[in-house]
């Protein structure tokens, strides 16, 4: 199994631990990655909010490069995934747009490769059984609230076969690790996403609601598959505390980090120390880590 890998900009900054842990888990599961040569930013919301053509052209540059590698594209970031997938679909469906985009990006681009999110690769291509068999330290008794956010569940061409209002992909993965995924109602509520800089108050209110609901449902940790969800939920727990008047110390952990933990991978590669809300107390209490190894 081999994919053209689109790391996305957050892999070089605030979401570095997500990319590193993903690479480690995929390697352990025998998935090969070939980084897309000279990939560029997908443009995210600033591109599609200001120019439709730009929002297609930017992902098209990276998709065209992957086409040359003749590999399906895999990415970890939920936003990059939705931008690349929409671009691919629109270019495939619309010959006029295909011609225009090929001219703009100076490269022939057909939209012939699939775009997959890492959750799909792990849950469907690698398979839950294979993951179960690779688990060395089951996360027994860890109550995990799986938080999907918007882009993984609702984008028109997103994870097609999952239910948009109550997805199960992450829950199934957590179950395979031996953890206890919670049945909770805020799986796909919005955290405020890219409004972090422009409408901070809105982001704090929305993230606080998600944290409160997770806490009320008895979650030990929240698990996410999107760097922006992770940043918002992790960073604003102090503000959420001020807003709602209750204390929040819920670690927000990338699902691949939990996978790495259950598979007993090198702690240096799963980077749990990069999270803002310290996950070690709860993980040590549950007996999944030996404090000395990590500190």
């Amino acid at each position, binding site marked *: 199994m081999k994919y053209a890998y689109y790391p996305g900009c957050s892999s070089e900054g605030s979401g570095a631990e997500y990319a590193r842990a993903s690479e480690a888990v995929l390697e352990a599961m025998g998935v090969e990655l070939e980084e897309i040569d000279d990939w560029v930013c997908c443009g995210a919301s600033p591109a599609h*909010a200001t120019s439709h053509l730009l929002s297609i052209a930017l992902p098209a540059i990276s998709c065209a490069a992957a086409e040359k590698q003749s590999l399906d594209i895999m990415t970890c970031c939920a936003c990059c995934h939705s931008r690349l997938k929409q671009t691919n679909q629109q270019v495939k469906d619309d010959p006029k747009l295909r011609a225009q985009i090929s001219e703009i990006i100076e490269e022939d681009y057909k939209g012939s490769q699939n775009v997959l999110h890492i959750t799909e690769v792990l849950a469907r291509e690698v398979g839950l059984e294979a993951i179960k068999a690779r688990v060395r330290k089951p996360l027994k008794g860890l109550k995990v609230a799986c938080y999907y956010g918007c882009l993984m569940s*609702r984008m028109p061409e997103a994870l097609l076969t999952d239910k948009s209002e109550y997805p199960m992909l992450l829950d199934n993965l957590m179950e395979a690790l031996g953890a206890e995924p919670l049945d909770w109602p805020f799986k796909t509520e919005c955290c405020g996403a890219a409004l972090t800089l422009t409408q901070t108050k809105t982001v704090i209110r929305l993230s606080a609601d998600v944290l409160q609901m997770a806490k009320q449902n008895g979650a030990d940790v929240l698990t996410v598959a999107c760097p922006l969800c992770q940043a918002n939920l992790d960073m604003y727990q102090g503000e959420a505390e001020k807003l709602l008047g209750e204390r929040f110390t819920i670690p927000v952990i990338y699902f691949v980090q939990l996978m790495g933990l259950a598979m007993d991978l090198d702690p240096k590669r799963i980077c749990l120390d990069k999270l803002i809300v310290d996950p070690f107390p709860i993980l040590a209490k549950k007996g999944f880590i030996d404090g000395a190894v990590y500190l």
Partner: protein
Amino acid sequence: MRTDLTDKALHSEFRRKVEELSGQNLSDCYQCGKCSGGCPVEPDVKVSPNRLIRMVQLGMEAEALSSDSIWHCAGCCTCNGRCPMGIDIVRIKDVLRSLTKNIHYGRGSLEAWTFYESFLDCVRNFGRLTEIGLMGGYNINSGWILTNVKKAPWFIMRNKLGISPHTIKRIDRLQRVFKRIEEIEGK
């Protein structure tokens, strides 16, 4: 608010332009309000998504473009997911946002445009985004110098900020792409 339903209002140039740019048929919307029911930012805005669509249907250009609701939209797509007619409401909002370039009115529009421009400038110059470049550009240009500054020490301590921007190899091609699109869109 009272608006006279004239033939001219229902077939306005503004409505035609939004329909053309978004590829959506606005007559599809029968104002059921499901979009507003699910909208997470609805409590923070004066104009809910279904009212915004109504404004476009009735050709109320100034009201639609100056509404705060297009700037508070998180792009979460709950409205799209729940619309019984399958209207791409987020795309309509994208179109409305792009129509306000160089107008800058409405609560939140200055911040949003500064964010978009800081983000895209960074992409245009380096091919990839760096958080330092984005936050620096945004905080200086928007005048909100202290936005999220309190969070910076955490990110530095956890070594989560890419300090030096990584420039892609074919940056010249990328800049031609930006230029071509500007020419096509006549900016």
